[in-house]
C-alpha cells in the first residue's frame, strides 16, 4: 500500500489482558514513531525507531509498554496487563529521514484500544 497501515483498527480488551498493535510503515522509511492519543487530547510521543534501533523510549508510560521493530520494517507495540487508562488511539508514523525535521511524517489511521 501507499500509506502507513495499522492493525487492528479497533481492539477491545478486558482489563489485565495483553494486546499487540501492529504498524506497517511506508516501504523504505527509516524512522518510525508511536504516539498515544487519549480522547479529546493531542497525540503524545511514546517511542522512536531508526531502522531496528529503538533510539528513544522516553514516552512509554510504564514498563507494561514495549515496542519492537526487529527487522527495521514492521513494528509492534505491546501492552501487558492492560488497564483502563490505556484506552486511547495509538498512532504510528513513519518518515524517510533519520529523525530529520525536514522529512515529513506520514501517519496511519491508528488503532483505537478500549479496555473494559
Amino acid at each position, binding site marked *: 500500500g501507499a500509506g502507513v497501515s495499522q492493525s487492528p483498527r479497533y481492539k477491545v480488551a478486558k482489563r489485565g489482558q495483553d494486546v499487540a498493535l501492529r504498524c506497517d510503515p511506508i516501504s523504505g522509511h527509516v*524512522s518510525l514513531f508511536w504516539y498515544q492519543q487519549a480522547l479529546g*487530547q*493531542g497525540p503524545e510521543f511514546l517511542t522512536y525507531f531508526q531502522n531496528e534501533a529503538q533510539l528513544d523510549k522516553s514516552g512509554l508510560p510504564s514498563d507494561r509498554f514495549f515496542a519492537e521493530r526487529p527487522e527495521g520494517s514492521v513494528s509492534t507495540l505491546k501492552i501487558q496487563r492492560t488497564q483502563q487508562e490505556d484506552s486511547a488511539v495509538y498512532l504510528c*508514523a513513519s*518518515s524517510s529521514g533519520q529523525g530529520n525535521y525536514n522529512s*515529513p*511524517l506520514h*501517519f496511519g*489511521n*491508528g488503532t483505537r484500544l478500549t479496555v473494559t
Partner: protein
Amino acid sequence: AQSVTQLDSQVPVFEEAPVELRCNYSSSVSVYLFWYVQYPNQGLQLLLKYLSGSTLVKGINGFEAEFNKSQTSFHLRKPSVHISDTAEYFCAVSRTNAGKSTFGDGTTLTVKP
C-alpha cells in the same frame, strides 16, 4: 520542556468566511513548528511547517501560518474556508526531531454552509 496551547477547542465558521486557529507555545530554546490536519476517520496529515527564514509559511489547501517569536505564537489562517476544511487541526512543536513533537489538544473546525 515545551508545551503547546491551542486556544480554541472548537471553531464554527460559515463557508467562504476567513478563519484563524490560534496556537501558542512555550519553550526555552528555539523550536520548529507544525500544523497537522486530521479529517474524519483518517490519519494526521502535515499542513505546513516553520523551520527557519520567512515567518509567513504557506501550506497545502490554501492555509498559511505566521510565526511570531515575541508572542510565541503560530496561528493558522485561511482567507476563505470550504466545507471540506471541516476537520481537527493540531499544532505541534519540536526542538530537534520532527517525529518527537509536542502536540496541542487540537481545534475542531466546523464549516457550515
